[in-house]
């Protein structure tokens, strides 16, 4: 799609487009290739079962994918990440906006937020499993509860930064509640939502692995625990890298285009 756009442009614009679109991709590729090379050299210099070379990890990755094991566990983990992310963003945003809008409520609940921010993820997970049993809801809930305080803090900042002039304009012109939400509130909160999402995804997938390790019988976390007991470092790295790659693709193919669309009005200036 991007290359098609470029084809239609004038040569000058084309070069500009290549500079902005391809240069970062190229530099990322070169940088990752350098890391792989360093890894291969190091594995060659200190050969050990606990430090496999990249080629071995790649072979395990291919085998596990072919057997269907890796896609299944990857899918389970992704589903949990997605569910926990949605729950955390919705609940965290709602609480954050309310606290940002009402100073009294904020004064009362701020200590709660600080408390939850500082409870270790492990404690929440263990308590969730004890109280609610070793089930999917407890697992996803525990991950969401870990993330919610961060979302609250970010969205509270966003709600404090809301411009009252837009709210007044919406009141004078009798915007419906839905219109206010869609056209006045959400666009103003968009940068904060983006920030909360970014840090959220990264944090959530790490916690999901712990949740899977402690109380689930599938998912990347469960597999990593399995291969830890087998002392199979190549498989551990294969699963980790596969998941990181998937997250990277989500970032490039979904998050970034969406952000470009959401901020289109900001980039085009006369």
């Amino acid at each position, binding site marked *: 799609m991007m290359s098609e756009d470029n084809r239609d442009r004038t040569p000058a614009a084309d070069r500009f487009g290549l500079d902005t679109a391809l240069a970062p991709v190229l530099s990322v590729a070169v940088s990752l290739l350098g890391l792989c090379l360093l890894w291969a050299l190091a594995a060659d210099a200190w050969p050990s079962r606990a430090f496999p070379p990249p080629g071995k990890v790649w072979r395990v990755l291919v085998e596990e994918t072919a057997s269907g094991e890796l896609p299944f566990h990857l899918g389970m983990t992704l589903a949990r990440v997605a569910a926990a992310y949605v729950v955390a963003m919705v609940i965290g945003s709602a609480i954050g906006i309310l606290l940002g809008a009402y100073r009294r409520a904020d004064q009362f609940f701020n200590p709660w937020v600080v408390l939850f921010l500082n409870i270790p993820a492990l404690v929440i997970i263990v308590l969730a499993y004890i109280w609610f049993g070793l089930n999917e809801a407890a697992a996803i809930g525990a991950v969401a509860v870990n993330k919610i305080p961060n979302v609250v803090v970010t969205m509270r900042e966003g709600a404090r930064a809301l411009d009252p002039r837009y709210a*007044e304009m919406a009141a*004078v012109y009798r915007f419906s509640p839905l219109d206010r939400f869609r056209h006045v509130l959400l666009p103003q909160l968009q940068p904060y939502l983006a920030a909360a999402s970014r840090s959220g995804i990264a944090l959530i997938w790490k916690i999901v692995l712990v949740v899977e390790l402690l109380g689930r019988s599938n998912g990347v976390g469960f597999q990593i625990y399995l291969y830890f007991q087998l002392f199979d470092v190549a498989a551990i790295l294969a699963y980790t890298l596969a998941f990181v790659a998937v997250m990277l693709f989500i970032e490039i193919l979904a998050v970034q285009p969406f952000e470009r669309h959401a901020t289109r*009005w900001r980039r085009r200036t006369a």
Partner: protein
Amino acid sequence: MQPVGAGAPLRVDIAEKTFRAAEGATITALRGLSFEVRQGEFACLLGPSGCGKTTTLRILLGLDKDFSGSFQLPEGGTDRIAAVFQEPTLLPWRTVEQNVRLALPTERRNTNLDRLFDSLGLSGMRTFYPSELSLGLARRAALARAFATEPAVLLLDEPFASLDEQTAERLRHLLLDVWSARPTTALMVTHNLREALMLSDRLIVLSSRPGHVLGVFDVRLPRQYRNPQVMSDLLRSFHEKFPGVR
């Protein structure tokens, strides 16, 4: 739509409006402010800066409810109120056209706005975002939004402030054109006497703080006869009546 001209006037009777500062100090912005704007009349609220003109508009817009007294808005037509704020206050993330349509009630969202955009010279700008407009064009878009709602009363808060005189003059004529096409009860805040004499049927002159009405100056002459000669006559008779007011 109900014919324009029927219905009640805009009646304002504010006993007192006080602001409390954070340290407990109080400032009385308005005291005993009462005036009336007849149906379909264009009135200007004229006064020195800080005399509570904007505060009055905010009260009428329902944005400030902490005052003593009462007011009555004209009824009829869409029964709506429209405002042109000091800043254009367009949603930066929506195009000019979306900004205008969002202000309309849902059942009129798809109404034809070609003539309105045309008359304000905005036809080519409908898909532009506000950040791509000059201040003058953004003000026109704000005017388009106000007129598109076909309000029962139109409140304008120094809509031509911080524009160069040439642009402001062109905008004043545009405002008159759109307003004449559908005369709406209008109240405009300004501290520009010449502008007020050119645009309005009635000037309501406010004192300095706490603001109250010093007097009313009616301009009965139709606007098309207000040439430079007539304007200087109007200015002279205004100064005779209100010697202290610039």
